[in-house]
């Protein structure tokens, strides 16, 4: 077991896969510059800088993936993926189906997002649900260095395009890494509890864990589910938890409308309605761009006090709408 940051864990996983599989290569804007150790070990053929042009980076990855390589590309920040939507959504996501299965697209697309660096709405936008809505794609967003490492191993080995989002608030946080792969599509129970299920991913997992400590002091046992993979979603883990607790609060930084919380709430309503003792609640970012102001940026994501207030209210039978930390 080693302690490392999420960023280093991802690089370590990439290096392991590049050693194991000569088909794996990595490229993107500044990849060969920032990943000097990878460049030294694997050479300029497999570790490449590119022009600053996200569309052709993603398109090159899709073409290479369909032709026998397994590219890992770094598009830097999630909003930059809008320049690569055609290649990711229309090509990598659809041409397997449209060709009758003639091609597959084993590729990984890396991007940072989320509050943490004060970079504003054109560098920070949690668009992970956009890709969950597109067929043919998988989406992961880890909360720990261990999961970042393990999910990266699995993402590179997967034969489908995987969007790999990293939360800027977490990328430099150190964590223990055992080295084991983490399968795609499998959630983790971060804390056991019988009273309410807090369902989250990325930074809000930690928000929920802090809230759970405070709730425990008030005699409320919260269960914290870390989804880890956004698509395919681990429905069984969600339903098992909600059937146990009878109450669910979905907590994510991405905005509310058509966000992942809506999907989780719908799954619970469709498949565990009989177990529910209260309406499912969503605590999310607002329908607004993120700000470059640290204060506004930090306030965008659901806070510990929001989770505590929502959990207490739902257990008291007075579930409230909205977030306690934000003005109505």
């Amino acid at each position: 077991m080693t302690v490392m940051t999420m960023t280093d864990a991802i690089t370590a996983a990439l290096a392991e896969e590049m050693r194991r599989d000569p088909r794996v290569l990595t490229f993107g804007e500044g990849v060969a510059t920032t990943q000097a150790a990878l460049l030294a070990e694997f050479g300029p053929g497999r570790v490449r800088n590119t022009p600053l042009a996200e569309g052709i980076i993603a398109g090159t990855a899709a073409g290479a993936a369909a032709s026998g390589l397994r590219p890992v590309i770094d598009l830097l920040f999630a909003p930059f993926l809008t320049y690569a939507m055609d290649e990711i959504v229309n090509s990598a996501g659809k041409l397997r189906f449209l060709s009758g299965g003639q091609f597959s697209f084993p590729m990984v697309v890396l991007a940072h997002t989320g509050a943490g660096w004060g970079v504003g709405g054109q560098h920070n936008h949690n668009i992970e649900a956009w890709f969950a809505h597109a067929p043919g794609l998988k989406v992961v967003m880890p909360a720990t260095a261990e999961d970042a490492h393990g999910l990266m191993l699995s993402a590179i080995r997967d034969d489908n395009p995987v969007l790999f989002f990293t939360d800027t608030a977490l990328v430099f946080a150190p964590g223990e890494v055992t080295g084991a792969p983490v399968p795609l599509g499998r959630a983790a129970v971060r804390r056991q509890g019988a009273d309410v299920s807090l369902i989250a991913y990325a930074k809000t997992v930690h928000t929920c864990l802090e809230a759970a400590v405070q709730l425990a002091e008030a005699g409320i046992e919260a269960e914290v589910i870390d989804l880890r993979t956004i698509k395919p979603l681990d429905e069984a883990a969600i339903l098992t938890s909600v059937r146990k607790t009878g109450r669910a609060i979905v907590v994510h930084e991405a905005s509310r409308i058509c966000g992942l919380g809506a999907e989780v709430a719908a799954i619970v309503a469709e498949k565990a309605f009989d177990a529910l003792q209260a309406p499912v609640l969503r605590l999310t970012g607002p329908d607004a761009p993120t700000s470059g102001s640290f204060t506004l940026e930090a306030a965008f994501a659901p806070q510990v006090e929001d989770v505590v207030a929502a959990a207490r209210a739902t257990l008291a039978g007075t579930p409230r709408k909205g977030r306690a930390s934000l003005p109505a």
Partner: protein
Amino acid sequence: MTPEQLIHALEQMLLIRAHEEATAALQRDGRGPGTCTAVGQEAAAVGVVSALSAEDEILTNHRSIGHLLARGADPRRTMAEILGRQDGYCGGKSGSLHISARELGVVLTSTIVGGELALVTGVALARKMARRPGIVACFFGDGAACQGRFHESVNLAGVWDLPILYVCENNQWQAFVHRKETMRIDKIASRAAAYGIEGATVDGNDVAAVHAAAREARARIEATGAPFLLEVVTYRLRGHFEPDDQAYVDPAELDTWRRRDPIARLKDRLLAEGHLTAQSLTALEASVARSIAAAITFAEASPVPPLRELKTHVYA
């Protein structure tokens, strides 16, 4: 091209034209969907594809029938694909707009204008890294040459020395807009200089000239390792899709280009040079007509995909 090669080229061009006109007729009769044809562009497809080697790959677009048939596709299976039938190259799941046939080296066909330009760099990179011989030909139009992806693709291919033959089939029309409304230049190949690569423009309605230019371009790619931009000047004689009354087309311009019809030109040449007689030409045309009739019969008899195919081939 030798007389035998020219006669073979004529046969392929006749087959492509008959295939395109047959799908247009099927649409008129309510038996098939609207298609995007490339009538008038047959010499471009046959001239380039005949200059490729067996190990080369091709990326094409929504006007793909010429490239597929020139590469040896079975017209029964292209027709079945257009009609959305199981015996099509994509099991009927593509329809007319994104027909790939990996067994022929026709890969990753995209109907997004410029989509093929974004994918070809990766296909060529994989070939180069595996040290596989051969090149990748990428067919796109003057419309795609106006997309940002054209710039990104040619620039990256130049920087990485990727073995790509960029073939711009300049057919003068970008859906319903004339090329002259969209660019100040007359020769798209002149853009090659901006990327530090070689380019050439050729009369796209002269199959022998296209073939010679494509052979030369391919040889340059093999000699230099760099991509090449070949512009093939031609004309889309039918509309953007079927049906399209072409009310927006200048009749005088259309008439000018009809008189440059690549098939008529090749027939006239082969007849004048004595390589073809009126009788042998009639026999050739009858043989093509039989192939297309058989293709339609085959395609209409092919089963439609079962509904479970709605959800297959989504994930690997």
